[in-house]
């Protein structure tokens, strides 16, 4: 049975080849359409996949961003609380310790002064973070580790540097325990990170923006940066519709309701999440009772996926091109249905003869679907070539930091061929059904 099935399939495949040879132009057109449609989809999908990826899949439903409305209904954006916290709320949240871990983050820029005269000073982007940061986001260390809660309390002059900066400054050697000079102050290196750059870089996207570029080179204690009056090298806003209030000195910045600190909490279970939501609500209610907020609690708690969506991380160009290329594939498919119909119906006499000689409807189905699959496969192979070509030209369409992310890997190759075969088969369903309806007697009687 099996060998018979295989030989039948080979026979159908042979028939398909013969028919392709007979109507070269039509076959070429279908293959070309499928190739173009699939390749366009795959190239845009590669970009979309990279930008819409879950940066921490094993933990993304346990990490949450708390939002507390410190602007009030008159100054927030369409009723939504700001994406970051004020210093007051951030510190309160951090001290409350209601979550398994809590982290405060703000983006900052530091000048690295070399010890010798040969090297030039350089400006490095970093994040001021509290000590739970490394454990919460599973940052891998090459040497050393993070700092302790005690270091946070003592505002210690410690720093964790990226592998890139370690390479630049120390040639990649274990630099734990050595000192570097940042903004004319000495810092002790306690850890060197492994190559680590989550994409999108979700944890500081609210503060630093640039989810796909500007990798962080250093991490310092949040409390130390605040002590040094280190300004946020990122988003800082006090209202979405009025001018920032007077902030004549650092203390007034800290006391203000301006939003500039990104906060994260780790909540392992659903019960934790529910409990935290309540706590957040109660905190805002307490602030209202104290007279700090003149509005009822307006709080949010979003996990990583929701947060990235809220921050509009996926570039508009990427989403838009995905829509356009899907429409393109759809139109190609409609086209292919028509062409397949023409192809199959042109062979109505042949079908009539085969049916008259005893071929069942089922075998007609099998024959024509085999033919469609073969054409789909050819379209897929062409699609592969065009996808590879498209990936090479991707830099002309997307910004370099986005284009860099899109990769042509095995899964994409497989998906290209699978999509081509599957869509061609779907497109061939109706034409095949029509072919199977051909009456043997009628075709023999009339001229065909």
């Amino acid at each position, binding site marked *: 049975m099996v060998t018979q099935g295989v030989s039948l399939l080979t026979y159908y495949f042979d028939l398909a080849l013969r028919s392709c040879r007979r109507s070269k*132009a*039509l076959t070429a057109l279908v293959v070309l359409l499928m190739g173009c449609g699939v390749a366009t989809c795959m190239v845009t999908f590669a970009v979309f996949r990279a930008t819409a990826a879950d940066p921490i899949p094993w933990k993304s439903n346990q990490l949450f961003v708390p939002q507390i409305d410190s602007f009030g209904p008159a100054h927030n954006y369409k009723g939504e609380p700001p994406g970051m916290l004020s210093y007051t709320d951030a510190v309160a949240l951090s001290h409350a310790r209601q979550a398994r871990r809590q982290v405060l983050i703000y983006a900052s820029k530091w000048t690295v002064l070399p010890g010798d005269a040969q090297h030039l000073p350089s400006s490095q982007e970093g994040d001021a973070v509290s000590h739970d940061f490394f454990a919460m986001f599973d940052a891998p260390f090459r040497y050393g580790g993070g700092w302790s809660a005690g270091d946070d309390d003592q505002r210690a002059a410690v720093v964790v540097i990226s592998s890139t900066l370690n390479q630049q400054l120390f040639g990649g050697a274990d630099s734990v325990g050595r000192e570097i000079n940042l903004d004319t102050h000495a810092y002790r290196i306690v850890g060197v990170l492994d190559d680590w750059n989550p994409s999108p870089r979700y944890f500081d996207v609210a503060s630093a923006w640039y989810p796909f570029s500007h990798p962080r080179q250093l991490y310092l204690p949040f409390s130390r940066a605040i002590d040094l009056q280190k300004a946020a090298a*990122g988003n800082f806003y006090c209202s979405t519709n009025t001018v920032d209030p007077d902030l004549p000195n650092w203390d007034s910045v800290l006391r203000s309701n301006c939003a500039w600190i990104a906060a994260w909490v780790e909540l392992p279970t659903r019960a934790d999440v529910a409990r935290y939501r309540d706590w957040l609500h109660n905190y805002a209610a307490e602030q209202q009772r104290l007279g700090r907020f003149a509005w009822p609690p307006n709080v949010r708690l979003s996990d990583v996926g929701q947060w990235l969506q809220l921050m509009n991380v996926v570039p508009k160009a990427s989403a*838009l091109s995905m829509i356009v290329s899907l*429409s393109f594939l759809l*139109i190609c498919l409609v*086209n292919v249905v028509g*062409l397949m119909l*023409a192809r199959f119906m042109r062979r109505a006499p042949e079908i009539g003869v085969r049916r008259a000689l005893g071929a069942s409807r089922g075998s007609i189905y099998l024959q024509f679907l085999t033919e469609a699959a073969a054409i789909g496969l050819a379209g897929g192979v062409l699609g592969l070539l065009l996808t590879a070509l498209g990936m090479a030209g991707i830099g002309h369409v997307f*910004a370099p930091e986005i284009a860099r992310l899109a990769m042509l890997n095995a899964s994409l190759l497989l998906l290209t061929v699978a999509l081509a075969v599957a869509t061609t088969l779907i497109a061939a369903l109706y034409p095949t059904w029509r072919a199977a309806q051909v009456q043997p007697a009628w075709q023999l009687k009339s001229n065909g």
Partner: protein
Amino acid sequence: MQIRPILAALRRHKMATLLIVLQIALTLAVVSNALFIVKTRVVHLSRPSGTDEAHLFVINNQWIGQSDTPHIDAQMRTDLATLRSLPGVRDAFASQAYPLEEGGGGLVRIKHRVERTTKAQLGLSYFADEHAIDTFGTALVAGRNFRADEIGSLGPYDKVVPVVIIITRDLANKLFPDGAAVGQRVYLNDASPSTIIGVVDRLQGSYAGSSTRSIDEDTVLVPARYASTGDGAAFAGGVVYLVRTQPGQLEAVLRSAPAALVAQNRMRLISPENGVVTLAQARTKAYATDRGVAIMMGAVCVLLLLATAGGIVGLSSFWVSQRRRSIGVRRALGATRGDILRYFQTENALIVGIGVVLGVALGIAANLSLMTHYELPRMPLWVLGVGALLLWLLGQLAVFGPARRAAAVPPVEATRSV
């Protein structure tokens, strides 16, 4: 004339007809929206900045270990004197941002009166001095330039309260639609009043993105040197020196200017990667996405039209081959070649016509949904008209080949059995 027999024939090929109609409709919907996106992007990226871009560059300068305003201000004066005296430099000034930077500039709210209830006009500001207009390369169209004694010195915690300002013509027209702006007083950010002393022709703000598109040419020049120490509420990133060179001197000055600054004082940081940026480079970078989207949409449009044309050729050829006998009969009964040719052309025009009607509805629906999700403006109907005309022409062109083959069918075909 031939509509009835065409309709009768089409009724026998319902599915194939429906497929072409559907394809025409989808193509029109996608192509018109894509062309419209291309048009908005091209308009966006071809806007002039109002500056002498070919001879303008900026130096992003960060201070190291300097934290008091008077000290930095003095350094900025020295730097500006150094830059202006360099051979090949036409003029230079210090600001916090530059055109096409995609950020950096200050957002200001401008009001006629100080009352809370008055609606404010938004604008984008540059810190400037008496050399700014000449450095930008824009022209004063009314009033006068700043005087050297009007340039203030600002620290990170200071509020911007200029006594005099210069604004662009675009902003002047918005603020004072029926009169001269020069001499008028306005309130910046609810502070004390500022007098408009001059109006410049055209000058783009520092944001090139889509969110500030409506105010990109509403620029305010604030007479001040801003000494950013890296403290304060938000980090302003040191100082930006804008330098305009003499014709043909750009390349030389790009190298000599940062070197001269470092030679004057080493305690500064001019990044080797992005410390020195020409306006031409800034333009390429700022509009990279716009250009990319336009290329992508344009390519998809071309492919789509080709695919549709291919589909029409394919299906028409099929129909012609199926109807060879009836064509032969018609020819035998006295129809001319022209009649047969016209038959297929009319049939195609009819099908495309139905597709276009459906496509216009689909196109408008697609535009409406894009408007809500991607901040696209409303598509004017003429875009759909152009798309429809394009498809109709394409259809006629695509069907011409098969139709000519149909017309070539000899009358004797009527008597053949296969």
